[in-house]
C-alpha cells in the first residue's frame, strides 16, 4: 500500500464519473451499494488504496448525495453540510489505507460522517434532551468560518411552502442529543438496520434500540399536534 502522503497521483476525473454525475443531476438518483454501476465499491476502494484518485473521485460522486443529505438532516444548514461533507470525504481518503475489504464501505463512510458531524455539533454545543430550542440553528444562517458557502437560491414562495413542517421537524430534531438524533435519522430516513446503525455510530445494537426508544418517545411528544 502506498505512503498516504503521496497517494494522490492521479488528478483527473474519469469519463464514467462525469457521465454518472450528469445522470445524477438529471434526477436519476443512485440506489447505492454499487448495484447499478459497472465498478463495485470494493474495486474502487482497492484502486484508491493504490493511490488512484480518479477512483476516489468516482466514490465521491457515488456517495456525495447521501453524505450531504445525512449531514444536512443533522445540521439543518446547507453551507455547514457542504463543508462537513467535504471534511468527511477527505478523512475517508486518509483512512482508506486502513479500511478492510470485508467491511461494508458505505457503512464505514457513514461512520466517518457521523463522527465529523458529531464533533461539529458538540463544538456548537447543541442542547440535549429537555432543553429549549436553539434558535441559532437556521437553514439560512451561514457559519462565519465556512470555507465555502455555495447554496442554490431558493425562491421565496418555495421556501415558504416547504418551511413550516420542515421547521417544526427541525425544531423537534434539534431538541434531541446528537446521539439520539443520529440513530433516529439513520433508522427512519436512511433505512439502516440496527447493526448498520451500530457500526455507523460506534455502539452496541442494544444501545441503538434503547436510543431509538427514547428518541421516538420525545419526538412523539414534540410532534403530537403536527399534521403531515
Amino acid at each position, binding site marked *: 500500500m502506498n505512503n498516504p502522503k503521496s497517494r*494522490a497521483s492521479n488528478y483527473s476525473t474519469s469519463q464514467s464519473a462525469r457521465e454518472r454525475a450528469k445522470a445524477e443531476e438529471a434526477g436519476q438518483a443512485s440506489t447505492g451499494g454499487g448495484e447499478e454501476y459497472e465498478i463495485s465499491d470494493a474495486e474502487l476502494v482497492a484502486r484508491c488504496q493504490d493511490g488512484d484518485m480518479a477512483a476516489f473521485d468516482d466514490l465521491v460522486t457515488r456517495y456525495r*448525495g447521501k453524505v*450531504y443529505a445525512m449531514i444536512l438532516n443533522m445540521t439543518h444548514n446547507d453551507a455547514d453540510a457542504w463543508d462537513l461533507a*467535504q471534511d468527511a470525504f477527505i478523512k475517508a*481518503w486518509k483512512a482508506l489505507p486502513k479500511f478492510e475489504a470485508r467491511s461494508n464501505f458505505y457503512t464505514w463512510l457513514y461512520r466517518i460522517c457521523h463522527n465529523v458531524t458529531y464533533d461539529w455539533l458538540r463544538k456548537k454545543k447543541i442542547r440535549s434532551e429537555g432543553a429549549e430550542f436553539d434558535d441559532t440553528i437556521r437553514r439560512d444562517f451561514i457559519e462565519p468560518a465556512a470555507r465555502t458557502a455555495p447554496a442554490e437560491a431558493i425562491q421565496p414562495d418555495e421556501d415558504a411552502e416547504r418551511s413550516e*413542517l420542515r421547521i417544526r421537524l427541525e425544531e423537534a430534531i434539534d431538541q434531541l442529543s446528537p446521539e439520539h438524533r443520529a440513530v433516529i435519522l439513520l433508522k427512519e*430516513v436512511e433505512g439502516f438496520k*440496527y447493526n448498520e446503525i451500530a457500526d455507523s455510530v460506534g455502539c452496541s445494537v442494544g444501545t441503538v434500540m434503547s436510543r*431509538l426508544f427514547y428518541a*421516538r418517545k420525545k419526538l412523539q411528544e414534540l410532534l403530537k399536534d403536527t399534521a403531515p
Partner: protein
Amino acid sequence: MKPNEEEMLTQWIDGELDDAEVAELLEAHPEWKDAKAEAQRVGNLLRSEMKAEEAVPYPDFFNHQIRKRILEEEEEAATEPAGWKEQAALFPWFTRFRLISGTAFVALLVGFVAMVATSPTGHTEIVSTYTPNPGVTASMEYSDSAKAMVIRLDGLDEIPATQEVAGFRVKSYQPDIDARALTLEPADGAGQMLVLSADRAGLPEVRTASR
C-alpha cells in the same frame, strides 16, 4: 420501563418480532397497542421532509474542492520541515513597512531575511536570520511591554531626514499559495513598482516592474 422492554417495543415498532412475540408483548402491556401506529406516524413525518439523498449544490466544484484540499494537504505534509509546527507568512511582516521609503525598504529587505515561527509560548520568534551584507548585523529580543519581537539592524546606511517616509503604497496583495505577491507603487506615480513575492519555500523575492 426495563431496558429489555424498551428494546422489545422498538423491535415491535420496526417489525422485528414475529406474531407470537407480538401477542405475548401486548398481553403483558396492553397500553402499548397504539405505540406502533404513533411511532410510524412520526417516522412518516420525518421521511416526508428529510431525504436520504440530496443533490449537492455545485457538484463538480464539490469534487474539485476535495481533490484540491487533499493535494494541498499532502504537498504541505511533504514539504514541512521536520520539528516545526508552523511557519508564519512573511507578508504580514512586510506590510508593516509600507510607509517606509522605497529605497530604504529595499535596503532593509535585501539586508535581512528572517525565518519566523510561533514558539510554544505563543508569540512569534525569529529562529534564524541572514544578512547578505556583512556590514549589517541583526539582533532580536522579545519585548514584554510591546508584546512583540523587536528586531535591531545595525550597519544600515542612515536615512536622510529629508527623505519622505511614505514613498510607496500598497497597490495589491495576492495571498494565493502559488502566486503570493505584494505590489507596491510609488506614491507620486513616478518610477518603478516593486513586486515582492515568495517562492514555495517562503523565501522572499524582490522584483521591479516598469509602469
